[in-house]
């Protein structure tokens, strides 16, 4: 298998499959579009598995490298490769794509082919982002991935979808355009777009500071960090379930991944200098956004705010510069991919039946949907960071790392365990427990086999990661240590 261009397959199988799905045309062929999409997604997932089984844990070097000239005029290469920081995200993304295709199976009734194609194409583009080692290639995938998500929110979204789609697109574009200038600047300095070359490129402090800001704006919008987070609740609320899942599980990770691939190793001195600011911003996200989540009346909005709070934990883990923090943040990212995806799927299950996301419209769901309530319980607990679930591992590691850095930072961060439990479980209580809220709840039917399947798979992932996280963390060690080495080495 080593001879296969696995990363190219991970990128292009979904894209080409997506174009084929598109070719099935109108909704008369919807069953064919669905099956074709599922087959593509499953193949796309299977080609990423050898990335894990064939991965060498002992090295921080890039693996599964593919290198070809693309645009010699700008010295741009089609340069792919993964290390311990990125490999898991390629697999996670391909996995989530399967879930999303299954989740949209019966729910999406109009323009089925376009819906499935949009998700498949986006999946390929996202894999491209995580495996690109050429700055421009990264940027191209980064920008191009906006198009499918824009369409997904705008075409299949809720009432206020146009506003949300525009806000999502323009916010992210605003950030990334400045990054483009930064990338071109780095190209002029180094003569290539190779990210690994940039890791070694000496840069003066003032240039580093400007680059840091350019990257920060791009990635902070994507993470999203307070105060540029306001697009996320809108996008989540209006997006269809599948869109929310991909957005939460994968798209939010892009910003955080950008910090690891670009900001920390390319401008280490500026990163060190700006770390206090980043930590403060992260803590604001954790604490303040936690309180904001508490008062939400809309379930999707609540989970969206909880995502921002969780991502605050991730950025906190990065900028305390110790192995525990960075690894914890990475684990948190993966775990959040499963848990937030599952939370949105659960809300989607309710929404498909009741067409409401308002907490007040529910109550006593457990009486009519016991199986669903059990799954929802597990994911709510994981979202709150209960030990034994994946949510706990990352938060605990970051908190430990933060204690090494500064006790009070850790103290503030740890409030998330209280706040997270408060907003998640309170929502869970109001929706699921109590007397049956109204007649519609009384008529609810429990989850069907298809819904059971994808929730069960996610539940298993959440539990395994919570109980035995070693397979996840062991692939990261070498790369994380190498990254921290880079951060500790001054480039001045």
């Amino acid at each position, binding site marked *: 298998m080593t001879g296969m261009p696995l990363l190219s397959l991970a990128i292009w199988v979904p894209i080409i499959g997506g174009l084929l799905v598109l070719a099935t045309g109108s909704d008369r062929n919807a069953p064919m579009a669905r099956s074709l999409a599922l087959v593509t997604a499953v193949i796309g997932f299977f080609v990423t598995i050898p990335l894990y089984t064939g991965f060498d844990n002992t090295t921080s070097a890039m693996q599964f490298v593919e290198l070809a000239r693309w645009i010699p005029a700008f010295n741009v290469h089609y340069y792919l490769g993964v290390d311990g920081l990125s490999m898991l995200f390629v697999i996670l993304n391909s996995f989530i794509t399967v879930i999303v295709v299954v989740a949209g199976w019966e729910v999406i009734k109009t323009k089925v082919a*376009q819906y499935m194609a949009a998700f498949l194409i986006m999946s390929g583009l996202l894999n491209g982002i995580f495996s690109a080692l050429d700055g421009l290639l990264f940027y191209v995938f980064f920008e191009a991935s906006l198009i499918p998500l824009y369409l997904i929110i705008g075409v299949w979204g809720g009432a206020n979808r146009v506003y949300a789609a525009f806000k999502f697109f*323009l916010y992210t574009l605003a950030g990334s355009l*400045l990054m483009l200038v930064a990338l071109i600047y780095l190209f002029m300095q180094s003569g290539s777009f190779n990210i690994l070359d940039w890791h070694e490129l000496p840069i003066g402090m003032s240039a580093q500071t400007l680059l840091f800001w350019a990257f920060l704006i791009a990635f902070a919008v994507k993470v999203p960090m307070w105060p540029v987070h306001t697009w996320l609740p809108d996008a989540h609320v209006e997006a269809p379930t599948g869109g929310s899942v991909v957005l939460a599980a994968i798209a939010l990770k892009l910003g955080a991944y950008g910090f690891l691939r670009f900001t920390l190793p390319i401008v280490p001195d500026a990163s060190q200098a700006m770390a206090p600011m980043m930590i403060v911003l992260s803590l604001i996200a954790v604490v303040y956004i936690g309180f904001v989540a508490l008062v939400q009346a809309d379930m999707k909005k609540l989970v969206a705010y909880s995502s921002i709070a969780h991502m605050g934990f991730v950025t906190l883990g990065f900028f305390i510069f110790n192995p525990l923090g960075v690894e914890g943040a990475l684990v948190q990212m993966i775990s959040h991919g499963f848990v937030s995806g599952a939370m949105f799927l659960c809300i989607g299950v309710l929404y498909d039946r009741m067409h409401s996301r308002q907490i007040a419209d529910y109550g006593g769901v457990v009486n009519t949907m016991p199986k669903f309530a059990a799954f929802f319980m597990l994911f709510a607990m994981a979202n709150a960071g209960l030990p034994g679930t994946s949510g706990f591992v990352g938060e605990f590691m970051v908190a430990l790392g933060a204690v090494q850095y500064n006790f009070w930072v850790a103290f503030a961060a740890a409030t998330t365990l209280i706040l997270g439990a408060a907003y998640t479980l309170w929502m869970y209580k109001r929706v699921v427990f109590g007397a049956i809220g109204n007649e519609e709840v009384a008529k609810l039917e429990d989850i069907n086999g298809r819904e059971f399947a994808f929730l069960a798979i996610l539940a298993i992932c959440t539990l395994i990661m919570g109980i035995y996280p070693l397979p996840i963390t062991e692939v990261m060690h070498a790369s994380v240590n190498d990254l921290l080495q880079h951060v500790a080495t001054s480039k001045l």
Partner: protein
Amino acid sequence: MNFVVPDFAPAATELFVAGMSLVILLLTVFMRESARHLGYVMTQLTLIVATLITIFTMDGQVRVTLSDMYVDDLMGDVLKVLICFSVITALIYGRGYAADRGFDKPEYHLLALFSTLGMMVMVTANHFLSLYIGLEMLSLSLYALVALDRDSARSTEAAMKYFILGALASGLLLYGMSMVYGATGNLSLSGVAQAIYNQAAVYDGVSSKTVLMFGLVFIVAGLAFKLGVVPFHMWVPDVYHGAPTSVTLMIGTAPKLAAFAMAMRLLVGGLFDLAEHWQTMLMLMAVGSLVLGNIAAIAQTNLKRMLAYSGISHMGFLLLGLLSGVVDGDHFNALNAYTSSMFYAIAYVVMSLASFGMIVLLSRAGFEAENIDDLKGLNKRSSWFAAMMMIIMFSMAGIPFFIGFFAKLSVLQSLVAADMVWLAVLAVMMSLIGAFYYLRVVKVMYFDEPVDTAPIHAAADIRVLLSANCLAIAFLGLLPQQLIDLCQLALVASFQG
């Protein structure tokens, strides 16, 4: 008297097109009404043969002939081929549209042919006189084309406006040329360049420098009008809007290539040693175009006007490429910068052809699909053409993987190389504003319900060609290298002459 027969061979393409247009002119007089389509066929054949002649005589040599009036170089050849392609495409797109509205007369095709000849003369001019003749030939044909739908008050008004402002601009240009002639004693561009270079060494007084600068200002103003950049942009939205769409298709595409060539010939070829002066002027105009073009486009509800304003901003980007060539007398970035500008011009023409082609496609007898709202729900009516239009819009917005992104990238890259990072930042911020109105078109097509549910009637040729045009936007975005190489090669070969 000593009469030397000049070498006509390098100018074979122009001579062929000129001869053929006269032949067609004569033939159509005697043609019966029923044989009307013959004019179209002969025009297309002429253009195709002209393309072939250019391609087969193309080499890297630079030949100056016809008493210094004419230069045959690779840049000119490449641009001539592209101009022919562009006009051929525009005529195919516009054919059904013109037929529905009853102005597919032989004049229509002939004027297109004459305008093509004008553009060819412009791109190969090595002399103020030939440049001016080419320009006027192009402009006068276009004025007439705009007014071709003579029962339409809007077209007539647009033609009038275009003519008056265009004549004024030509006057400015001519006045500038006369001053440069006064200061240098030369009309040939290479002669002017030589004279300015010599004068820079032994400067003969302030007066001729003042005259030269005056001339430069007028020339740049005339040029700016033809490119349609701020503050000489007023005509662009009105003419694009007022002209029949099949004519807008011709105004908004190939002439931009000719205008780029004119800028290269005049500013880089003739007035290169004044670069620091014209670069400042271009910078002001570029910034103005980017800001005004993008902001004004947001307010438009008419698609043609929106594309006109977006065209202004695209021309601003093109100028950014031109002005980033020489910094502090250092030429190292010049080739890179002019390549980026040429690449941008070509990319713009490809996108612009497709965008106006789409309007033509969606229009039908008695109905102009020129409002943004007319695209509502296009995805439901034809998901294929909605996808094609989406490609055009995202490409114009500069979103990868489309050619528009790489065009912007190459300009930004040359700006950063010239230490003009602030201009690059301004340009990307304006692209962000631009993204809004392109996104709105996509929104209308995909998120809204159709108002007009009529199926799309169009001939097979326009359907196929338009699809190919849009796919080319995507394909060139995946593999832009060849086009960049072509631009660079053309400019290198031309500079060496």
